[in-house]
């Protein structure tokens, strides 16, 4: 098999089995976007850093041959947010689980303590205390696995509630943005099916019934209350933190989990991490790649002390060390794995449970598939679950919180049975997995020093570009969080290229890091065609003066300051469909050679699927 014809949708899911034109449009859009993420990941960060660019041991399989003999490497980690146990080792087991479930200890009042601002290099690089994050309605669930617990009555204290259902998700927000872009109503339909019950479920088995409407999922301008319109589709814009995909708790009227929401939990970030981790580091930089902490600090990807990032990065690095090039296996994505269940000796069911009841009897897959084949045509050692549910059918007369699972009571050191109080006990068993393909090449990878800031002068760094109306609404929408940090919905948007039809103009906002001079003027902007030339199809006008914003650029764990500039892009009528890059240079400067453009920042495309 030479190159891949496309990137498949996550788990190969088909959300338009009845409308092949829409499925084709979604598949094409998705593949195009993943290809863009991949190119961005390979390029890395060439603007303001050294030794983190041109990460070409990560490849784009749409134009790099992947041999059918390529090995598949499975990289797996636990879904429970490990930074909670790392940073708060002296909290009780129940408090740690409660923090993971709700953001509060079991007292329902005390939230996370503060942590050092930066632990690179370990153990403490910058001990300035900061609030524990990521911030957001369930931002601390930062292992690419989030869950929402449905209770009988959210007004009761947590300890008195019944746990009716738990939804675990690892679906990336970029896919949901893409699905919505094709058909918002289909997204609504899937919310209703996934957050409720499979077809044919008897009424008396349903614990929680949600009714999700289009209006529940659309982004509204907080100042006017008006729906934000997508200038390309003419339809409403998706709100990724809508009321049915927000927070750790749910009841029939609010809350739920449909896809990932923590700011670092994006597929684009995942690809960036994987590509960044391919770079081999010089051991004389003070460590080696068997040390996860050193490697993550040296290469500056991800967060220390997660189950995920340090482990993913090191695994990729070690594979590449063997002169192997890598990419994520098709379909690229993050996948939940069926838990390896604990011994039946460690699970207690209530007396009215069916004889022989097992935990796994109450676990089901709402979205995703059991298995898929790898490059060699054989099944990969992976499940491809996107959304899993734990729930006891109502007719059985008991609920999840009537089931007890053993854990060690830290006070006695002995095993004690604890009722299921939320998703944390299952997240301890639930693994998330990515699958990488790897194939040998010669010569092998070079070694580089650790990533460091580029010497001045360096150019501006592009971060994200969105439709202006979307940005303005998201940036003005305050997102509450348990640690009361200032956050806006802008942090939950996704980095995908805005689409513009030929002959149309669109108002955009670009966020960027200013150049080394710290200039407050707008950078020079040019859209770059796939052949590397400046595109004559896009004209930039109405460039306003930049302003400072603070938000977590999607993929980042914590907010930081950057600049935002708004402008208008006019696309010529003759323009052919293309995915363009964006080059930024310092205001009024002509760099030679010019800074590399960031790939896939604007798409010129005809509108093929109209949204009423």
């Amino acid at each position: 098999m030479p190159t891949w014809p496309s990137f498949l949708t996550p788990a190969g899911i088909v959300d338009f089995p009845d409308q092949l034109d829409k499925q084709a449009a979604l598949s094409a859009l998705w593949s195009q976007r993943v290809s863009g993420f991949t190119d961005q990941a390979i390029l890395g960060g060439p603007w303001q850093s050294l030794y983190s660019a041109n990460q070409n041991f990560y490849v784009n399989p749409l134009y790099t041959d992947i041999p059918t003999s390529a090995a598949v490497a499975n990289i797996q980690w636990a879904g429970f947010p490990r930074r909670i146990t790392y940073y708060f080792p002296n909290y009780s087991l129940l408090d740690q689980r409660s923090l993971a479930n709700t953001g509060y200890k079991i007292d329902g009042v005390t939230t996370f303590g503060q942590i050092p601002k930066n632990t690179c290099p370990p153990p403490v690089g910058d001990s300035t205390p900061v609030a524990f994050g990521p911030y957001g309605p369930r931002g601390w669930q930062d292992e690419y696995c989030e869950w929402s617990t449905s209770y009988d009555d959210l007004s009761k204290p947590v300890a008195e509630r019944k746990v009716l259902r738990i939804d675990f998700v690892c679906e990336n927000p970029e896919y949901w943005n893409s699905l919505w872009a094709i058909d918002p109503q289909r997204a609504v339909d899937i919310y209703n099916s996934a957050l409720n019950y499979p077809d044919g479920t008897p009424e008396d088995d349903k614990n929680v019934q949600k009714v999700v409407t289009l209006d529940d999922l659309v982004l509204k301008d907080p100042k006017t209350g008006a729906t934000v319109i997508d200038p390309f589709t003419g339809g409403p814009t998706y709100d990724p933190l809508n009321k049915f995909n927000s927070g750790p708790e749910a009841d029939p009227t609010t809350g739920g989990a449909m896809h990932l929401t923590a700011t670092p939990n994006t597929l684009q970030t995942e690809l960036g991490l994987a590509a960044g981790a391919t770079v081999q580091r010089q051991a004389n930089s003070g460590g080696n790649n068997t040390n996860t902490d050193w490697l993550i600090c040296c290469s500056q990807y991800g967060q220390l002390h997660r189950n995920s990032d340090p482990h993913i990065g090191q695994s990729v690095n070690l594979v590449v060390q063997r002169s192997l090039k890598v990419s994520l296996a098709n379909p690229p994505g993050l996948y939940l794995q069926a838990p390896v269940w604990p011994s039946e000796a460690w699970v207690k069911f209530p007396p009215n449970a069916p004889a022989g009841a097992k935990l796994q009897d109450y676990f089901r897959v709402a979205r995703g598939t059991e298995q898929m084949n790898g490059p060699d045509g054989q099944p990969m050692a992976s499940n491809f679950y996107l959304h899993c549910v734990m729930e006891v059918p109502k007719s059985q007369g008991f609920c999840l919180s009537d089931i007890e699972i053993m854990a060690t009571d830290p006070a006695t050191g002995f095993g004690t049975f604890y009722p299921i109080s939320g998703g944390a006990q299952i997240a301890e068993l639930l693994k998330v997995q990515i699958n990488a393909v790897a194939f040998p090449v010669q010569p092998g990878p070079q070694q580089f020093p650790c990533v460091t800031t580029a010497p001045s002068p360096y150019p501006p760094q592009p971060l994200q570009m969105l439709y202006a109306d979307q940005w303005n609404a998201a940036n003005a929408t305050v997102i509450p969080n348990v640690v009361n940090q200032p956050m806006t919905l802008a942090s939950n948007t996704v980095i995908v290229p805005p689409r513009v039809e030929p002959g149309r103009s669109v108002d955009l906002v670009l966020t960027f890091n200013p150049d080394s001079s710290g200039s407050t003027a707008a950078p020079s902007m040019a859209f770059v065609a796939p052949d590397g030339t400046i595109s004559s199809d896009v004209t930039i006008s109405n460039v306003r003066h930049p302003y400072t914003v603070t938000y977590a650029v999607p993929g980042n764990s914590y907010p930081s300051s950057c600049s935002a500039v708004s402008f208008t892009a006019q696309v010529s009528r003759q323009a052919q469909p293309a995915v363009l890059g964006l080059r930024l240079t310092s205001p009024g400067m002509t760099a030679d050679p010019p800074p590399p453009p960031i790939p896939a920042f604007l798409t010129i495309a005809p509108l093929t699927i109209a949204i009423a």
Partner: protein
Amino acid sequence: MPRFSVISAGVTTVMAGLGLALIAASAQAATPTNYNCLTAPQVKLVDNTDPVFASQDNFNCFAWQAFINLTWDAKPGNPGVPDASVPPSAYGKPVRPEERERPTVWETFSSKDAVFKPDAAPPDPFGAPPSGSEHCRGTQPGEVPLFAITKLVGDGSKGLSNISQAGIKFGWVTAQNGQPTYYDVRLNKVEYDYIVSNKLYDAVQQGKLATSSQGLLLPQGVVEIKAAWLEIKDKSLWPRYRMIRTVIEEEDPANPGRPKCRVADMGLVAIHMIHKTALAQQFAWTTFEQIDNQPTFGDAADATRHFTYFNPGCDPAKDPYKCQINAAPCTAPNDPKTCRPLSAPNQVEKIIPMPPATKSLNDDMQTKIKAANGNSVYQYYQLVDTLWPSDNTTIPAGARTPLYDGNPQPPLGQGGLLNPLIETYFQGGDPNQTGGNNPRGFLSCQSCHVLAPIAKQPQVTQCTVGTIRGQSDPGNCASDYSFLFSNATCPKGTDCSK
């Protein structure tokens, strides 16, 4: 049973043109049964210093390759070195114990008793055959022990180390044939050399090294072994076991204080092999077992199977343990009067189920071994699992206990890792039985080994470097996760009690 059904993707036709075919989702969620290693273990000697990268499957494949390398015949006259001239077709050849075939690689490692001797005496040369005890030196030709003499002497307060499991007093486990299980601890040449070159058989030297800028930090390549042996008199079972002939000291009720010595043919029933590697600085804890040892709790009963440590027809009215699963010998842990007879068989079950991928790897390896040598005894062994550090971390010099555990996998919630014949009672039992003093709970290798200290010192000796967040006060000096070091003694005349 639940009446929910899985929503299947059901998209095969649409995907068919995209180069990758989907397998339709099955009706129940299940972990993949196939394991995935970038380097699959082989039935031959293969360099095996570390897994390709850190994952459960890759560590499990590393474990199997290590098992094969370490159970290969040793090169005569070269303890710890495999004989590369032995072909795979001879791997695990069953032998009659009295034939005294040459030992395997790990069996030529030094016994802990040959390294940590009384009065801080220097160790025997690496791999030197055990000399035996004062009671068993005069063995007859053909009865020379291949291994350190195991002991069962005393009143239960001492001398039980060879049949007692770690971390539990009077923690023996007796098979259905009425014989106790014997434990044998060994270490490889890398560790032996480190101990000898730093004189760490002397407790005082441990204290000096642990508090120095160098620290007591084991080098990569260290291997420690803990093997469990059972006397097997039924010769029809021998083709399923690695058999050795050894000599056992037993208490002689007729002559208190004068143990008797007898020859016994022992079968290997379980073995820990732990490895310190670059990717496992918190150690890779691998453990294997003979496949007939015990059933797994919750599995459907199979009346046709014979288990070495489990009686499917156990009668509570007649059984001293009342057929309680994994019940410890003594109902009061510190009172030998509450112990059941040593000859009373324990009813052992494996509590932590074997993950499907491990099962799949075991099936593959057993097939490969059988293909190499259809008579190999090692086709009747299986990997229980491997515990490995997903946050592999270099330990600094001067570290105190408890050490950082490296975020071991499998997680405790899943059960961690225990060998049913080496940590029988830490497994816990059947929650529906009253288990006496049976400690049920989540324990794993690292639950205890993070606490491993250096040996007792002439004066209070503490280390100040914490490896766990918030650990700022001094504490016992750590011995890099190895309890072997606490066996060191002090020179004659030096009081080491602190």
